[in-house]
């Protein structure tokens, strides 16, 4: 018995033992496959769905045009998805499956920063590129890894424009509050640093435990500090509570920003008036002035095409996914093939403009070419108010 057939036998036995069939769809000849594990059912399933739509939209668009055009040949695109239940262990396991079972060479990042850090440890050891569309934590990028690239602005840039707005509006007293959780912590820590840089005084900074049912002690303390502007970070549940309690407590900041929230489904609907004039930094908005050099569409063009397929206007999640695949597409074309090492090197040299924005990586793999826009809820609709070149309308301050 040859070693490979024996190996297959053992694997087969084990797979029966583990109740899993290893039967894979035979890879079609001219097919290029990507792989990712997303939160399709966990507590981040809402975001997971948006992320997936962006990937699928790319696949659909490219395949409708006959496939990826690499070295004069057309390759159909396919993405292998798994559900990571928003669970780190599951996610790492699934990436190992993508790599060693499904033989996927080109990986797309998972959703969520903690998960991305754990997964990138694995992909780095495998020396396979991981293009991250949705992992914003700066700690992902500052470990000196060579195979990770993030198309999005990392978390320490999130609040930059909001703080800058504050200083331009002569708001000098900033209050910061975050959930005691990785993403929010890094984001708010970033805001504190930027405030110092831009000469805004941080008059209050604290964190709260996840799942809290009453934020009034924090808000009362915050109120006592008399802030002009509040920036808060945490997951949607808590942000809805926070928004309600801010008004109940009688806090009336001139500006109220969230790391995440106002643009997510449900936020405006549940909060009504309390959502009005809140700010959120977004990776992308429909008004960004970029024309895609691969597909030729503008941001609005993308949104329209997307809406035809999925029936809703995309926020930044889908296009970020699409952009990650465009990074790969561009690299494939430059390499003229699919050797992972060469593709990795080509990705490092990426310098493209997409409808999402320009993409160019520093040596940590962070996209340094684009910046964040700031969105404000006005009359129940999110509109871009900053920076000036992409603003749809003017920023409104609370009276």
């Amino acid at each position, binding site marked *: 018995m040859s070693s490979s057939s024996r190996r297959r036998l053992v694997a087969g036995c084990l797979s029966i033992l583990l109740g899993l069939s290893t039967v894979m769809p035979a890879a079609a000849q001219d097919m290029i496959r990507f792989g990712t594990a997303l939160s399709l*059912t*966990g*507590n*981040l*399933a*809402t975001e*997971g*769905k948006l992320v997936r739509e962006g990937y699928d939209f790319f696949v659909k668009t490219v395949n409708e045009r006959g496939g990826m055009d690499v070295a004069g040949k057309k390759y159909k695109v396919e993405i292998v998805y798994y559900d990571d239940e928003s669970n780190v262990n599951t996610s790492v396991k699934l990436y190992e499956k993508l790599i060693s079972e499904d033989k996927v060479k080109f990986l797309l990042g998972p959703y969520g920063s903690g998960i991305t850090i754990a997964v990138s440890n694995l992909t780095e050891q495998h020396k396979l590129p991981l293009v991250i569309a949705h992992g914003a934590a700066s700690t992902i990028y500052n470990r000196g890894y060579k195979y990770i690239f993030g198309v999005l602005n990392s978390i320490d840039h999130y609040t930059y424009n909001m703080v800058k707005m504050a200083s331009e509006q002569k708001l000098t007293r900033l209050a910061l509050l975050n959930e*005691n959780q990785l993403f929010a912590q890094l984001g708010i820590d970033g805001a504190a640093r930027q405030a110092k840089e831009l000469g805004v005084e941080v008059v209050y900074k*604290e*964190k*709260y*435990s*996840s*799942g*809290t*049912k*009453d934020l*009034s*002690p*924090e808000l*009362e*303390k915050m109120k*006592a500090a008399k802030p002009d502007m509040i920036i808060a970070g945490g997951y*949607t*549940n808590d942000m*809805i*509570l926070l928004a*309600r309690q801010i*008004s*109940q*407590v*009688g806090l009336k900041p001139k500006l109220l920003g969230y790391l995440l929230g106002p643009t*997510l*489904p*449900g*936020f405006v*609907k*549940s*909060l*009504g*008036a*309390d959502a009005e004039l809140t700010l959120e930094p977004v990776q992308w908005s429909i008004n960004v002035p970029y024309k895609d050099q691969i597909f030729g569409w503008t941001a609005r063009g993308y949104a329209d095409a997307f809406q035809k397929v999925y029936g809703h206007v995309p926020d930044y999640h889908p296009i970020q996914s699409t952009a990650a695949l465009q990074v790969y597409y561009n690299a494939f074309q430059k390499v003229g093939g699919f050797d992972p090492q060469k593709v990795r090197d080509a990705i490092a040299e990426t310098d493209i403009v997409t409808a999402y924005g320009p993409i160019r990586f520093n040596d940590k793999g962070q996209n340094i070419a684009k910046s964040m826009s700031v969105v404000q809820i006005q009359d129940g609709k999110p509109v871009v108010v900053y920076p000036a070149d992409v603003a749809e309308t003017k920023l409104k301050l609370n009276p």
Partner: protein
Amino acid sequence: MQLVAQIVLNGVLLGGFYACMALGFSIVWGVMNVVNLAYGSMIMIGAYVTQMAVLQLGLPLAAALPLAALATFTMGYVLQRALLNRLAERSVFMTLIFTFGLNMALINLNLILFSADVRSLPDVFGRASFTIAGLSVPYGRATIFAVAMAMTLGLHALLNWTPLGNAIKATSFDPDAARLSGIDVPHVYALTFAIGGAIAGVTGALVATSYSFSPLAGESYTMKAFVVVVLGGLGSIPGAIIGGMLLGIVENLASLFLDSGYRDAVGFTLLLLVLILRPRGLMGRRFFAEVKG
């Protein structure tokens, strides 16, 4: 001083909500020695039913609330009658694990039916609040508090003034003697679970109006109920109130004076202390069940 008073008042309001939420958990635990880990999911179901009743059927909140209670009441009865009664004689681990599995199943069902989106009903009360002695009380929180108190009194009345309450109490003290007194114990167990369910349903309705909810948000409610019940004393109605208030106040004061990140840690430290020093809880005399193994 004003600040501390305001925070304590907020703690009391929060405590009322905690108490209300813990009541259903407590009565099920006290009477049947079942720790229902799916309790939080039942609260979520109550919230979803409320939301559907309000947004899709266009019912007023006051009508949606009993509907939510009815839904979870029925669910509770069927669960206990069909499944949990079979485990009555088994070890406490078994029911614990069983309700854990049930919780997973309910979460998944909720995810399929309602998606993972965070939802919330538009706030009926908004920013309105009134003032007592210079302290502001938001109408929303005050309403929750009032409903919680009403439920507590209602449960108290039910247990002490009705034949069903009599049967429930008797069963909790001594199931065998209850059987000898002509009480259909499996039926009473099912009704008790159903009442616990109804309370979860009402809690869910309150959550829908003032908080936000999603299929996975239930677990934090289960945990809180746990702490409140142990603090106050198993199966004790005054215990639930006192446990709830104590937890609300202590949590809020901890947030005020310590870093708020320690909020939960302080709650659980309190729990550990009570367990070590007074395992029956603060009010847990021989109210319902004795501390059963």
